[in-house]
């Protein structure tokens, strides 16, 4: 049992918005061992021309994985989360995420393919502000390992 191939083309609408907070940026930067003062000090971020603290380059994964959770929780997907392995990941930033942003993620299922006895699913999150401004596109491929 792999992944339902009929999922390709499915779009999961954005759920609740995600409010980007300064403390979350600081916490995520610390957890990823990022040292730029622009993640920690508002004055340093402003010196670089940003309105507020800048999120680290992979911060959008928080929002993308929330969107992916909808798919994994969907009984129609057939995905067993305990067998999921992250195969690849990409972030395209249309502009940096900064503290104060209120973001939405719409999830697209772009591809499902058989991989031996398992299957690979590629999803894309289109992250925008609540006003509709494009902020980031993230793409993830998850390998669902076959039952032993």
């Amino acid at each position: 049992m792999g992944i339902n191939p009929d999922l390709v083309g499915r779009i999961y609408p954005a759920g609740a918005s995600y409010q980007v907070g300064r403390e979350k940026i600081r916490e995520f930067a610390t957890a990823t061992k990022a040292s730029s003062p622009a993640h920690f000090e508002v004055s340093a971020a402003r010196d670089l021309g940003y309105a507020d603290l800048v999120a680290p380059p992979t911060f959008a994964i928080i929002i993308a994985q929330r969107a992916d959770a909808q798919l994994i929780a969907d009984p129609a997907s057939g995905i067993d989360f305990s067998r999921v392995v992250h195969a690849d990941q990409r972030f395209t930033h249309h502009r940096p995420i900064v503290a104060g942003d209120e973001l939405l993620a719409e999830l697209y299922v772009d591809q499902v393919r058989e991989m031996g006895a398992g299957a690979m699913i590629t999803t894309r999150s289109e992250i925008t502000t609540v006003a509709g401004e494009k902020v980031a596109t993230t793409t993830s491929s998850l390998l669902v390992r076959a039952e032993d």
Partner: protein
Amino acid sequence: MIEFSTLEKGQVIGSKTVSVNRGDLVRYAGASGDFNPIHYNERFAKEVGLDSVIAHGMFTMGSVIELVSAWVGNPGAILDYQTRFTKPVIVEDPAGSNPGDAAGTAIDIEGKIGALDAEARTARVDLTVSANGTKVLMKCQAVVQL
């Protein structure tokens, strides 16, 4: 500031080592919201067929980009960042250590200029990332606005 005209394809921008211990994985789980127990519970990791607890792929991806952020001096200049996760980074729990103070697994990183776009003033930095002598990320590339 990096002077674009001085950059050459193949040039090494730098190298560094990031260490990861069990405490780092708990911190990353909390910060990211990814609480898959294979990243903190050895019994569970082994039951699902892993050798031990492994780092979140996103911890590795998230921490190795620091080399590029520090080089360019502006983390917001990273326009595009991608990788493939090819091998897990095993994080052991040495006897007698506090899991948050253990030396941890060393992740070795080297960055090289992979491509330059003079018109867009962007550089693609290709990262070589290995742990215990094995490459753990492939096609790890960041496009930076200069």
